[in-house]
């Protein structure tokens, strides 16, 4: 009973983190970069939104500026990586550390800033889950359509090829460095957008928001893709799957809390879930694989040998 009572909140939180997971999907799956900036940029989004709301700025503008702040963080990581030659994973860690200072100064040196739901019109808040869920579903749907259109434009296709095969991309005249910066900007913009929604939903922004966010995002991606890739391996279904994965994650999360697991152990649980998803394909290949036929299915007999 208590579980059912907690369900709407879990769905709402899952949807908010789903936005974050979509951002991570762009960096991790499309650009093939494990971008650790997100732990900082989700917090930046929350801080920017909370501070601006406190100044009486309309919520729509707050969310937009939060997105831009996150995008800027992505540009910093992108430039550290492409212009200064720092490996992408380190570039992300460096930006994340910078953002800790940035976020503290955005919050004016405090570690927590409350958002008064009575003084501000908020898009989402934990006191009205049904309304929050509707807003988040509409926002997610708009985002999916927008990204779907974008990634099938001439520019969007080169962003996909940049992650898929940088050698081929360069040979076809694609500016791989610029594309990585653009992709990281979009990804972190979305992550910060998720942070902005999170601050509204919780009614506060904290300097500790987003610690371990990348792990939650990855968990959502793995859970989601494990189902959606079996249904249809295309872009839109994958994104829906990622959001679904995030919701499933938060339902399980709440369920585990209700079972009585100490909240201290939750980050451990998240990390184990992600470790399992990362390990299973490897273990399968290493210990449980049988030799397969050489020709992949659907390859024509006269089309040359697959082992060529």
């Amino acid at each position, binding site marked *: 009973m208590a579980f059912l009572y907690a369900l709407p909140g879990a769905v709402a939180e899952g949807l908010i983190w789903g936005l974050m997971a979509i951002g991570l999907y762009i960096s991790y799956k499309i650009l093939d970069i494990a971008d650790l900036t997100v732990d900082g940029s989700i917090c930046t989004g929350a801080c920017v939104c909370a501070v601006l709301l406190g100044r009486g700025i309309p919520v729509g503008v707050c969310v937009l500026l939060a997105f831009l702040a996150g995008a800027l963080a992505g540009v910093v990581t992108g430039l550290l990586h492409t212009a200064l030659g720092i490996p992408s994973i380190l570039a992300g860690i460096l930006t994340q550390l910078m953002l800790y200072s940035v976020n503290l100064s955005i919050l004016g040196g405090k570690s927590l800033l409350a958002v008064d739901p009575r003084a501000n019109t908020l898009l989402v808040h934990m006191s009205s889950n049904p309304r929050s869920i509707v807003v988040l579903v509409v926002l997610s749907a708009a985002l999916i359509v927008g990204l779907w259109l*974008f990634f*099938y*434009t*001439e*520019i*969007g*296709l*080169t962003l*996909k*090829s940049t992650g*898929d*095969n940088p*050698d*081929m*991309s*360069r*040979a*076809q*005249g*694609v*500016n*791989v460095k610029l594309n990585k910066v653009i992709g990281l900007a979009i990804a972190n913009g979305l992550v910060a957008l998720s942070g902005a929604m999170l601050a509204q939903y919780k009614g506060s922004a904290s300097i500790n928001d987003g610690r371990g966010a990348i792990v939650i995002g990855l968990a959502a991606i793995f859970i989601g893709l494990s189902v959606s890739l079996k249904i249809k391996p295309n872009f839109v279904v994958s994104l829906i799957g990622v959001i679904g994965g995030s919701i499933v994650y938060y339902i399980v999360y709440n369920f585990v809390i209700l079972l009585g697991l100490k909240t201290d152990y939750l980050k451990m649980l998240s990390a184990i879930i992600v470790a399992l998803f990362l390990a299973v394909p490897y273990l399968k290949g290493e210990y449980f694989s049988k030799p397969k036929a050489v*020709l*992949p299915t*659907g*390859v*024509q007999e*006269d*089309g*040359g*040998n*697959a*082992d*060529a």
Partner: protein
Amino acid sequence: MPMLKIKNLCKTFNPGTINAKTALAGLNLELKDGDFVTVIGGNGAGKSTLLNAISGVWKPDRGTIEIDGVDVTHMPEHKRAAFLGRVFQDPMKGTAPDMEIAENLAIAARRGTKRRFVWGVRKAERVRYRELLATLELGLEDRLSSKVGLLSGGQRQAVTLLMATLQRPKLLLLDEHTAALDPKTAAKVLELTDRIVSENKLTTLMITHNMKDAIAHGNRLIMMHEGRVIVDVEGEEKQKLTVEDLLKLFNQQSGAEFTNDRAILG
């Protein structure tokens, strides 16, 4: 005006270390418009280094490279791509495996143009791609929406060749593009290469490890040794060459025995 003009090109890898390796030692080369040049040479002769220098993978230590009168020596790789069609030795390198055949072709079709926020693969293009794929005779014309990763190595090289020539390049660079294929598939891809090059009158530089192929294809043959061109024959003289002639030429010019693990001599 020559289509490609290389003057005094030098490149040393790991300079100043015990692993220092001079790959190009003052190489000079000029290609006329429409030249189809085959390149042979022993291990470490600098064949691939030459192609990478032209493509802009890294900057040379000295020397200049001009393509159709434009000095590209300091132009970044993605900008130079506007002039070049490239097919790599590794069939995995030339195509994006997780993207559709049509998407790969569409990206290649826009090489050298400013990419915009408009639909990435248009309907009319699909019709054109279907026709072009049909000419490959690999049954790919009905698989426009298939992921390239599902294709065999030979199919991927054929698609890469198509991608390299969709936008007519000023220079086609083929880096042992059949070396990783089985003999039957390699022959088919070579035949395709000949057809595409002659139909479009492309200026071409083709590295091969097969001396017979080097003689049978193209109108000009160069042999490299220690980062320089040591043999350069064309026209009728080239047509009359035999593998024995080539080996003799090599020994005369270089004072060394021809060594290449993968060279197919007979």
